[in-house]
């Protein structure tokens, strides 16, 4: 049987010799395993390193690539760079939110399937408004297309693909 979450965290801590100076590498290791930094793990890591959880939180929130919340199976990134913005990426964002029951503070759907992220220009302005879902790119998005896409992913999921 596989190692449990905390066994792996212990391994990571030992690998970096429980040195608070290696905090960023340790958090990187944890995030790689779990895709986010869970509260219980932060508390454990902090205590093991002899720093406060608040200190770890400060570091984790400073760097954009750390996330404190679990992400859904599908991470939707909507580009809101200038080109996409003028071509109504705002509508796309709103449609995703209403279709998936998300809000500005609630980024991941209840069923843990979708996480919505609004990002700055991804360098594909020719495809504006453009979005990505995990590795796949979808161009020239409209309200209609957004609705179809959500339905499509939900169907796939229901069929267990």
């Amino acid at each position, binding site marked *: *049987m596989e*190692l*449990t*979450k*905390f*066994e792996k965290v*212990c391994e990571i*801590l030992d690998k970096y010799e429980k040195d608070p100076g290696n905090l960023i590498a340790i958090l990187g290791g944890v995030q790689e395993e779990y895709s986010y930094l869970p*509260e*219980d793990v*932060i*508390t*454990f890591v902090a*205590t*093991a390193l*002899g*720093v*406060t*959880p*608040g*200190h*770890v*939180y*400060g570091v984790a*929130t*400073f760097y954009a690539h750390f996330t*404190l919340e679990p992400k859904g199976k599908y991470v939707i990134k909507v580009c809101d760079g200038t080109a996409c913005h003028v071509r109504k990426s705002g509508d796309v964002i709103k449609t995703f939110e209403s279709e998936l029951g998300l809000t500005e503070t609630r980024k991941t759907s209840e069923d843990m399937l979708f996480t919505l992220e609004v990002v700055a220009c991804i360098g594909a302005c020719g495809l504006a408004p453009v979005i990505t879902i995990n590795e796949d790119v979808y161009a020239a998005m409209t309200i209609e297309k957004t609705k179809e896409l959500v339905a499509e992913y939900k169907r796939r999921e229901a069929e267990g693909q």
Partner: protein
Amino acid sequence: MKKITIDNIETTFKNERNVLEVARNLGIELPTFCYQPELSIFGSCRMCLVEVEGRGILPACSTVPWEGMVIQTNTSQIRSIRKMILEMMLASHDQQCTICPKSENCRLQSFAKQHGVDEVRFQSFKPEAEKDFSSLAITRDQTKCVLCGNCVRMCDEIQSVDALKFSFRGAKAKVGTFLDKGIGFEECIGCAQCVKVCPVGALNERHNIKEVWNAVYDKNKTVVVQISPAARVTLGELFGKDAGTRVTGKIITALKRMGFDKVFDTCFAADFTVVEEGNEFLARKKKGENLPLFTSCCPGWVKFAEQNFPDLVGNLSSAKSPQQMLGSMIKDRLTTDMKIKREDLVVVALMPCTAKKFEAAREELSVNGNPDVDFVLTTNELALMIKERGLDFNKLTESELDEPFGLSTGAGIIFGSSGGVSEAVLRYAAETLEKGSTPDLKKLRADKDLKITEIKLGGETLRLGAVSGLKNARKLIEDVKSSKTKLDIIEVMACPGGCVNGGGQPRATVNKAVSKKRAGGLYNNDKVLSERISSNNPGLKKIYADMGEKKAHNLLHTHHQHRQKNKNEGYVIDETPGEKSLHLDICFGASCLKNGGQELYLGVMKHLRENNLVEKTEFKATYCMKICTKGPVLRVNGKQLEKCSVDMAIAEIKKAK
């Protein structure tokens, strides 16, 4: 001596750390938010900008002066930058100055006035209200924060508590706590030193003014108040008096006019603390146990010790602090003398300290849920109440303290200064061991963070240390643990310089000088009193005789505990759903992790996996089971295994099946 020219004035400098200090020596005030002389230089607010010939505009606080430097501090460009910075701060500020507790004491407010800010040209974006009332000692209001970082550095560099941290970045940057759980969740010890360096209204003392007025105006309550030594030499500062001026008599009159029924002296109880602590020390010394003895009258220090040094908790004096001793004596005595119910007797304490608010709320310092001290007011709060009541403080006549807790010795008075408690205890110990001896204790009065003195008494050499500021205390403890320093008694005060600089005291601009004057006020008071050794307090002798030994011990002593660092409630850490037949709870607290908690966890997990028990096990992690000296600790179906080895754990798990 090197030459420098500032605003066309030629001057010299020696080892000033930065241009700002040189300018200030010259009487040129540069506005600053993030510069705080006792803390490291942060250089973030940009208010202190100056123009350096040949180098352009630089922040004075983080620029080291050099020979021949030519500086302008007030060019029109600099003035307009400063004004712009202030306007930007105001744009993201809630601008509710009239109802801010720091109003008239706020640098943003005064700088805006000084720099002629009469409009805010930037679009104002109202920051999300995020008020934090989770602590008994301090409150936070992020909407007023200017991100100067003074609080963060104070808590880390001076107190080594590290409870406040910057989180996020850019426009979202703020001073935060873990997952925004609030400062009450953190290891904060409530010293409010962060409040003292916060230039704006983002950090404040927690006020209990409303509760106290309610009690005073409640006809069914008898409300008495005790006044601490440190408050009586500082309250005057808030009414225009010099630091160190004793205003005891006026405070008493004010309190009486405000409706308090009796005014007692905390110093009276300090004499008891001295006698109890002194006896405890002499007994420990005889047995050679639990030494060095640490004083326990500073609640900030006590909480810090409980959280960080579980192995030293037994070394803390079990004598209650003067505030708490007096609280329990008042409630015991007055309920009988005045024939009132305990619930109808309200004890208020006037203190220089916000951590005392936390102390008063400790469960062990109450009787059947009724606290020995109901409310703590800081010096600053009392000043507000005096103003609210419409009293012209300086015109008040002087009154006397009330019996039976009104008379104290000089020893009780000097408690308010770092080194004072040690001196008082030593005077008593000297008197007990060698009647009539007057040991030389001058070293304890030095204006230093760490003072060590040695005296010979009754054929023995006693070594005493008095330390203030918790980072200094931490260092001293490490030295004592590694036997680098040998001491018999250690007095610790959390606030730099002791209670005279407590978090509830008026804010001073030039800290060192003011603190010296405040302490001076106490030592002068001590000088004029006829009795200077605690055991000679006549009231004390009488009360001891009335109470009897057993009751005295009950009323005057407490116990300390191992305390979890922050307030997390523990986490269930297993990942499998379903029926669980085995319940394990492991301590992941700091001490247990240091003593092999991780190895224990890994060993247990290995056993569970090899025996296919993982899915049947509910695994919980607790972050301190409050028996830190007996770690690592594991509970198997509720049975607690102390100093638990992997083998012990496995044996118990097998039994449990």
